[in-house]
């Protein structure tokens, strides 16, 4: 049986500056499966909190409109154009945002797409992996909607969630940049185990609590995380 949960918490920097959370998250059931999207508006862009919210909503709408059935390039192009169309005004750079999305059908087939930083982790049939390459530059440097046009900047993966403990975890860089790279699998397993055993509402609260008491010193960034996983029936 599939389980899903997600949470977002505004970072201390934006909280103290009375600025909005630039992260966004959307989690929806879809035909027996789940759709999850997280997005992180670029810190330096004035309206990126608008861009991130519209990105996750447009991504879900693309799924519902069957875009995912097309070729990957066509699907991304269609989604990107839809996002540009819904933006207020014609300044996509001001609303630039990263995007990570996972669509999992009722049989556990899961498609993951990522543009920009953040982390998409998956456990599948005893294997573990992360979508995309590690960060080469510095923190807060990233490809993004509204900035990056190249299709090659997107990263994809297709996995099957079959066994209990299999799952996909998406997170923005407010968390990803503070994780030990060699402990990512343990992190994903801990999250999936702790959130799923609590049920959906308490699992979300548990995730929010963990984001609120984030252990890294002087952490400032907004934090968003979501998961889709298999639990025993």
């Amino acid at each position, binding site marked *: 049986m599939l389980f899903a949960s997600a949470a977002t918490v505004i970072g201390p920097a934006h909280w103290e500056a009375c600025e909005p959370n630039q992260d966004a998250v959307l989690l929806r059931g879809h035909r027996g499966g789940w759709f999850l999207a997280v997005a992180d508006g670029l810190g330096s862009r004035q309206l990126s909190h608008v861009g991130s919210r519209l990105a996750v909503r447009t991504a879900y709408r693309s799924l519902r409109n069957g875009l995912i059935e097309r070729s990957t390039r066509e699907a991304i192009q269609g989604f990107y154009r839809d996002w540009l169309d819904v933006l207020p005004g014609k300044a996509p750079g001001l609303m630039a945002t990263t995007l990570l999305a996972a669509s999992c059908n009722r049989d556990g087939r899961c498609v993951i797409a990522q543009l920009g930083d953040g982390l998409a982790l998956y456990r599948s049939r005893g294997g573990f992996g992360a979508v995309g390459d*590690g960060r080469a530059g510095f923190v807060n440097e990233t490809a993004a909607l509204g900035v990056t046009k190249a299709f090659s900047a997107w990263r994809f993966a297709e996995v099957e969630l079959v066994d209990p403990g299999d799952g996909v975890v998406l997170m923005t860089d407010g968390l990803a940049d503070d994780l*030990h790279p060699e*402990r990512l699998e*343990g992190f994903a397993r801990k999250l999936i185990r702790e959130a799923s055993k609590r049920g959906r509402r308490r699992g979300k609260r548990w995730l929010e*609590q963990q984001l609120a*008491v984030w252990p*890294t010193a002087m952490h400032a960034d907004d934090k968003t995380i979501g998961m889709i996983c298999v639990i025993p029936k």
Partner: protein
Amino acid sequence: MGFAKYMEDNYSRYYGTSIVRGREHDPFARGTDPRKEEKEAGQMKEQSSKLKDFTVAEARPMPVIVMADVSGSMSVDGKIEALNLALKNMIAGFAAESRVRAEIQVGLITFGGEDARVHLPLAPAHRISEISPLAAAGRTPMGAAFEHARKLVEDKEMISSRAYRPVLVLVSDGMPTDDWEPAFDALCRSERGQKATRFAMAIGADADVGMLERFANDPESPVFKAHEARDIHRFFRAVTMSVAARSQSTALNNNVPLMLAEIPEDDDLDLDF
């Protein structure tokens, strides 16, 4: 649909995409006991993270790397003394900052004589107890300093990918005396070096302003020309303010220009005009 799910869906729709706000603004929480809410908030604060084993405990670093000319010409007119004091004050200023959102680290590369050397390895400012004074002698091997700086910036063990964009500061009072251009180009074109913020100060009339202008890459912070020792102080105070302001901001990778006009002359009286 049961009552609990109805309330959850209304809660979810109210907040749209799950923006979390303080409970005092939450209409669905009205009528609850404020003492109970305060207790829950206190419990949450006391609750320790269950994810400590997987997260890096240290704050994200913001490296500041200074390349300082210690050639023989710096020994006149109080220049090297001013530089020593300015560097000491800059490090103390970073260490004293309490509202920062990054750990400011400082490294110092000097070039004088026949080679450049790492005078102070990159370290958190609050852990630098003292810095041995710089002594001026010899020629101006600036190319060697660029090579040291490039290696440091590109070293992912020393400056991890968690770090914010580094700040490179170059101060010089003369012309380079080695083959500096290949090393300079390599630094400015390296994958990480090109992303660093670069400030420069020309000390005195003999400095290679043209080269320093090529080095400095912030259009709002052109090469600062120091004509006397106290100008050196002003420059480093501006660097301190710029880096501190950046480390307190919500966009820590954005440059904060050097606000030299806001640094009062040391001799000025404290007057509001």
